């Protein structure tokens, strides 16, 4: 730990730090929306920030790939004119938990694949990310440890850990370094601070453990034998196909592209909006055929897109364990429960083989 760069921020200087940070460029941070819900919104002072919060309604992807984004402006007259558009706004995000940092790492991989998505990548390069450690679980729906997202592992410019009297801050990039330089609220960390951080992490290792009783490396195998599991069928009657679970998921990135003309039909824009595999029209194709008509098949697809397919393609899970899908589902479909039921069903099957 000693070779890395750490600084500290005394608690009494936190508000000062936030107001200075908000003067550098637009600053967003978690704020309370009531009813124990939170959202990342623009702030200018530390009072507005909810330092202790459970994952926000929408994840950070709303800043990296906005709900609606213009890609192209065009004219319909002869000698067609079309101008690509990249919408971006420099901003700093304060308070991202490790699960949400993992979510951005996933999106970065997807949008850096060829053909590269320059709209996404340009926007990403204008965003400064400041993480905030979870010293304990946010709530019972989290499964971040299972997918290796409960401890910091990069993907940020600065990373804050709350040690009561002060925050210890890991400086990870040049951008992070510049913030420390400009704001001047920080002090060098010494060995005692580093030790205290280590103590916190040791303690965390006792609190955090696999939330579902399976070893991480066995998850792909579990899914390999679960395609025809009864678990999926059971979801058919419960799921309302509302799409909430994918809209709130930090790693769901499907979008639809549409054109819209002005009323005079002379000019128009091409834009993209979030789409979701849970929705009825998603897999409906010409001729009216829907190759994922059953809600159970759509739910199954969502789980395989988190735990199986990306393992082959990106060598990681595309679930960050944030628990948002579970919290948002009014039908009470829980990610942890589904995984547990899959495990149980596969064990039954293994047993039957032996008998």
């Amino acid at each position, binding site marked *: 730990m000693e070779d890395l760069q750490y600084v500290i921020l005394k608690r009494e200087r936190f508000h000062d730090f936030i107001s200075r940070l908000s003067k550098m460029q637009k600053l967003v941070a978690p704020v309370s*929306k*009531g*009813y*124990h*819900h939170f*959202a990342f919104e623009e702030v200018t002072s530390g009072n507005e920030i909810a330092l202790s919060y459970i994952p926000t*309604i*929408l994840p950070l992807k*709303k800043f990296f790939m906005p*709900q*609606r984004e213009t890609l192209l402006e065009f004219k319909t007259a002869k000698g067609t004119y079309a101008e690509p558009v990249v919408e971006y706004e420099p901003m700093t995000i304060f308070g991202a938990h490790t699960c949400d940092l993992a979510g951005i790492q996933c999106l970065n991989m997807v949008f850096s694949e060829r053909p590269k998505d320059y709209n996404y990548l340009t926007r990403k390069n204008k965003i400064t990310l400041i993480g905030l450690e979870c010293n304990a679980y946010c709530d019972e729906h989290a499964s971040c440890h299972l997918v290796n997202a409960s401890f910091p592992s990069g993907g940020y410019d600065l990373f804050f850990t709350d040690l009561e009297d002060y925050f210890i801050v890991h400086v990870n990039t040049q951008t992070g370094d510049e913030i420390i330089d400009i704001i001047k609220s920080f002090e060098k960390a010494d060995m005692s601070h580093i030790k205290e951080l280590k103590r916190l992490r040791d303690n965390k290792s006792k609190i955090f453990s696999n939330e579902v009783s399976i070893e991480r490396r066995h998850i792909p195998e579990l899914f390999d034998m679960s395609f025809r599991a009864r678990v999926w069928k059971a979801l058919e*009657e*419960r*799921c*309302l*196909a*509302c*799409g*909430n679970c994918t*809209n*709130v998921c930090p790693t769901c990135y499907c979008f639809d592209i549409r054109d*819209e*003309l*002005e*009323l*005079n*039909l002379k000019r128009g824009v091409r834009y993209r*909006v*979030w789409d*979701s595999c849970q*929705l*009825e*029209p998603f897999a409906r194709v010409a001729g009216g055929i829907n190759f994922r*008509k059953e*809600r159970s098949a759509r739910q199954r697809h969502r789980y395989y897109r988190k735990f199986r397919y990306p393992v082959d393609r990106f060598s990681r899970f595309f679930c960050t364990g944030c628990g948002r899908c579970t919290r*948002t589902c*009014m*039908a*009470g479909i829980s990610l942890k429960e589904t995984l547990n039921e899959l495990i149980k069903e596969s064990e039954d099957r293994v047993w039957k083989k032996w008998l």
Partner: protein
Amino acid sequence: MKKPKVGIFDFACCEGCQLQIANIGEDVLDVLGSIDVVEWREVMSEKWGKNLDIAIVEGSITNPHAVKRIQRIRKKAKILIAYGSCATIGGVNGMKNNFNLDDIRKYVYGDSYRFFPTEMTKAVHQTVKVDYFVNGCPVYIPEFVAVLKAVLQGVPYYVPDYPVCVECKLNENVCMYDRKVTCLGPVTRAGCNAWCINNGNICYGCRGMVSNPNEKGAQDVLAKYKIPMDLILNKMNMYNKCRELG
């Protein structure tokens, strides 16, 4: 391009959706500049009577006179737009279909009920062919503008076939179910940008149901929140009773 000749007609309704045209705001000149309104009872005394490019029809079909009248309008119009919930799904007028028709007539018209023939309430497309649907009670003006653009381009407009929840989430609202209030968003067609929830209300289902709603699942969810079953059915029927007519 010549401006299309447009007639605006009303059947059984509150005429509130027509009023929405006055609420278009800054787009109003663009909208009125792109069409030529030749008949509109609410604001002009002239009757056009000739062929139309576009008929905008508000209200549901509730008696034999209305059936004849809508058939005449259909014959005259190249394109027919059903405008507002009463026209697109029958809307609140559909509640009539919960009762015996004679009982209803007696209740409304007393002894002279025989002079007032009536029929089961129907949405416009349950009587004549409809080319475009603008759902909502009242209509959501940005969607009306989108439909109008589609008509002018000669391309179809697809009413979203996914629930209001989608748009509600994109607006990052706290879900009504998390406020311990029920909401018909999960079975109601989107397209209004979750208008009511954005303004602190629940969704009443005014745009009609998605094509493949999980009614069993929705009832389970509502039941989980300890809402009595007949209240649930009432809620679903308030706007959607005419679905049963197919």
